[in-house]
């Protein structure tokens, strides 16, 4: 009967142990060729911000979805909305708008705002006459948006596109005012449980059909024994289309836009819990948009 080579087996296992200790503790393989899932939270925010900015520019929702999946958020919409709130709090409204627009598009399954790209007509003109430029901005009444949509940016011939970029259309920055149009639709109603906000805060954000915030929109809120009116745009540091109202506990409210909108009924300040298990009065966030 052959003897078991204990010494050799012992050397093998000792070597195995030494190798594992070396590769895990002494010289672990460096963090290279990593995926966005392992990025630090603030870098993930920047990555998400770039995805939203890219989506705002192209309107390419499948591509944005694929990119968001790389970050590995359990709920991309929630992550986008949460980051948008933080951006609003820190005064970065443009980025907040882009993030909110992407979150909305993910919820709806399509891009619900216009993508600021040159018109096909202008591109055709460029191809025929390379020296031609985009038309000048329209008169002041029409200033808000002279862009028209074209979802075909990816298919745009390179030369033509570059010719357009050489003559970028000026982008107006006028604050929008509400105009008579289709009634506003209540497109989102979210419960906000965030201890950073005042108790019972009712936030209202109003967008026009081009996904731009609308200042000066009159909001009517009513409850059992009273009614009050307030307007968007009084807190421009948060957003031109933003307005808020402080809800009392155990009071049910109904809210609508004076210009005509869906009625958000049955609004009650929700009871939320802190991570430590303490109850506090949460808020509600309503988003209206003109179809």
């Amino acid at each position, binding site marked *: 009967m052959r003897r078991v080579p204990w010494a*050799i087996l012992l050397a093998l*296992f000792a*070597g195995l142990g030494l190798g594992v200790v*070396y590769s895990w503790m002494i010289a672990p393989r460096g963090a290279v*060729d990593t995926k966005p899932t392992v*990025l630090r939270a603030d870098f993930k925010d920047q990555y998400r911000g770039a995805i939203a900015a890219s989506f705002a520019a192209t309107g390419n929702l499948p591509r944005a979805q694929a990119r968001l999946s790389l970050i590995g958020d359990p709920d991309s919409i929630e992550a986008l909305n949460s980051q948008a709130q933080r951006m609003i709090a820190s005064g970065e409204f443009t980025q907040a708008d882009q993030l909110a627009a992407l979150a909305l598009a993910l919820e709806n399954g399509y891009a619900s705002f216009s993508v600021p790209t040159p018109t096909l007509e202008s591109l055709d003109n460029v191809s025929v006459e390379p020296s031609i430029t985009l038309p000048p901005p329209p008169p002041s009444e029409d200033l808000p948006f002279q862009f028209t949509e074209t979802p075909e940016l990816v298919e745009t011939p390179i030369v033509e596109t*570059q010719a357009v970029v050489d003559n970028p259309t000026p982008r107006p920055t006028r604050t929008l005012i509400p105009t008579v149009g289709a009634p506003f639709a209540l497109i989102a109603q979210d419960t906000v449980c965030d201890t950073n906000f005042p108790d019972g805060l009712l936030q209202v954000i109003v967008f026009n059909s081009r996904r731009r915030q609308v200042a000066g929109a009159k909001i009517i809120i009513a409850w059992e024994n009273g009614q009050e009116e307030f307007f968007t745009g009084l807190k421009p540091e948060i957003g031109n289309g933003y307005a808020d109202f402080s809800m009392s506990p155990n009071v049910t409210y109904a809210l609508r836009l004076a210009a005509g909108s869906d009625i958000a009924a049955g609004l009650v300040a929700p009871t939320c819990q802190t991570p430590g298990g303490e109850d506090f009065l949460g808020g509600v966030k309503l988003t209206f948009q003109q179809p």
Partner: protein
Amino acid sequence: MKLRWLFILIALITGIAAGVAYGWIIDPVEFYDLTPDTLRADYRADYVLMVAEAYRAEQDAGLAARRLALFGAQSPSSIAADGLSFARSSGFGDSDIALMQELVTAMQAWSGINP
């Protein structure tokens, strides 16, 4: 006797090699909270493409440079150029490459001083 010690030595070296392979390849240490400069080249290139897509619409070179600064110490133009180089070698679409080329040009022209 010498042959026995030789076998023990071979077993030890084999064990070490297997242990290192296990720790480096099969079950490497997982890292979290990393910086973007550790991202794989294709993710970096896609990030550059995102910035290029946004730049096309925004035409704000300073903003694009700030976005590219995510990758750390390299200059924005070299980050964009690296992304473009990867895109060219990896068969990105012509329109994507054109966007990145435009970004590289803008970053090369960008002085770093906002008006």
